[in-house]
């Protein structure tokens, strides 16, 4: 059973750090927002209470922004500038393309039984959406977060009442990000039947060749045509690593489920 590499070690590391920092931000943010409720103070107590939660939230937020900076440098360094700008429009690029819309419509058509399954390439439209959504989210959350980092200082560059607005924008965007990750990302990535119980590709880096040619036939054919498929073949990870991935992944998912259910069920008790 040969395996094809989809993500490099650096890319997996980016995902791991993003995931850990996102979860920390979600927990510290929700703990503070729900501090009036027993659930909120429980969540905040994991991080040393109301005050310390905010301190952690601030510094992890700065860490996420620097991670974004490092990622942008990484992307600029990995782009193959020789084929610029034509290659950026190609199937190996994460930039949105008009084919994505066609594939999205085709995919919905397949869901309702009107069309055959679209032949997906290396990056699917929902993956591109998830990728760019992180930028969008980090710009809004990071921008408002920086303003809220030190309200006294930031009131020199915007009127104090702007902080009321900033906090609400931060909060709604955070709710959107969390709900998207906890419902849509987890379902598409891990819980739908094709992927259940968990898609390890983002931890393991590689995917089974059979599965890949079912999932992304256009990419596999393109690689075969260009004779690059063999270059991407990697040995499977040892069992103990796979077990560790499952344990880690499910721990994170259960933690997120705890946050999601708690946030929903206690939302009525919070003074908004």
């Amino acid at each position: 059973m040969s395996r094809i590499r989809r993500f490099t070690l650096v890319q997996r590391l980016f995902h791991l750090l993003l995931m850990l920092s996102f979860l920390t931000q979600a927990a510290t943010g929700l703990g503070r927002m729900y501090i009036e409720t027993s659930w909120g103070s429980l969540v905040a107590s994991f991080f040393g209470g109301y005050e310390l939660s905010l301190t952690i939230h601030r510094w992890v937020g700065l860490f996420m922004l620097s991670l974004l900076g490092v990622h942008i440098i990484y992307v600029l360094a990995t782009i193959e500038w020789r084929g610029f700008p034509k290659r950026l429009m190609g199937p190996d690029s994460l930039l949105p393309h008009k084919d994505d819309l066609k594939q999205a419509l085709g995919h919905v058509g397949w869901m309702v039984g009107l069309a055959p399954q679209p032949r997906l390439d290396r990056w699917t439209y929902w993956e591109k959406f998830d990728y760019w959504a992180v930028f969008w989210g980090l710009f809004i959350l990071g921008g408002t977060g920086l303003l809220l980092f030190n309200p006294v200082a930031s009131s020199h560059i915007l009127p104090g009442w702007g902080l009321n607005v900033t906090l609400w924008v931060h909060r709604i965007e955070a709710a959107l990000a969390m709900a998207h990750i906890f419902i849509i990302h987890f379902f598409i990535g891990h819980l739908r039947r094709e992927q259940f119980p968990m898609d390890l590709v983002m931890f393991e880096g590689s995917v089974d060749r059979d599965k890949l040619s079912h999932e992304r036939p256009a990419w596999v054919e393109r690689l075969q045509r260009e004779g690059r498929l063999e270059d991407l073949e990697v040995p499977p990870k040892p069992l103990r690593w796979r077990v560790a991935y499952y344990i880690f992944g499910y721990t994170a998912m259960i933690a997120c489920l705890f946050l999601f259910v708690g946030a929903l069920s206690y939302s009525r008790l919070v003074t908004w």
Partner: protein
Amino acid sequence: MIKIGCRGCLLWCLLVAVGSGFFFWPVEATAQEEVASAIRRYKDREASTGYYEEYEVRPRRQRPLVGVPGVARGVFPYSPSAAAVRVTTRLADSHRGVQFYYNRRCQDCHPQQAKDYHTTREKLTCRQCHGGEPIASIQHYYSPLNPIRRHAYVCAKCHQGASASFASYVVHEPSPAALETRQSFPVLFYAFWIMVALAGGTFLVFLPHTILWGLRELLARRRKHGEQD
């Protein structure tokens, strides 16, 4: 027949008395911590516990030094002419003339104002910002909350270095979703609804997409190993 001696009888009576004491013991008043005088017992309590201004105490029963000329004390006479004198946003004692004022707590009349983060999360009391009796109207020239000195006299007590701009933060924030906020705080209103539309729009697309996808895969024929679609 059981014989009970004199001492036994006494012991029995004592037991019954103590036992019934459990039933007739007065319920401890939950309001005992709230004291009427801001000068005596409450100050003592603050000094002995080290916790200052934890509880809201009722206003002291002494006449404020400021007042409305011509009105000695008590209920302000409501009349068309008096109403012209009384501009509520600019009074030295904004509560002067309010009936039964001394028996009320702030949130009895201002329930919405007690639902801000300074109160619900940071556990501040009204008086920590609005000051003791007499509570001046915010626009009164000598009020600590007058925008000309609010940042220095109130905000900076906790937010070191607060500027006048900082002090324009709306502590008693209106509900951003409410239609009235479009008049009172339009930027908050529109920012809120634009963000909600953004979030709602995302889920309007992705929720049905995800549900349909899940159902389609659940109902699909199981793919055999190595089979292509």
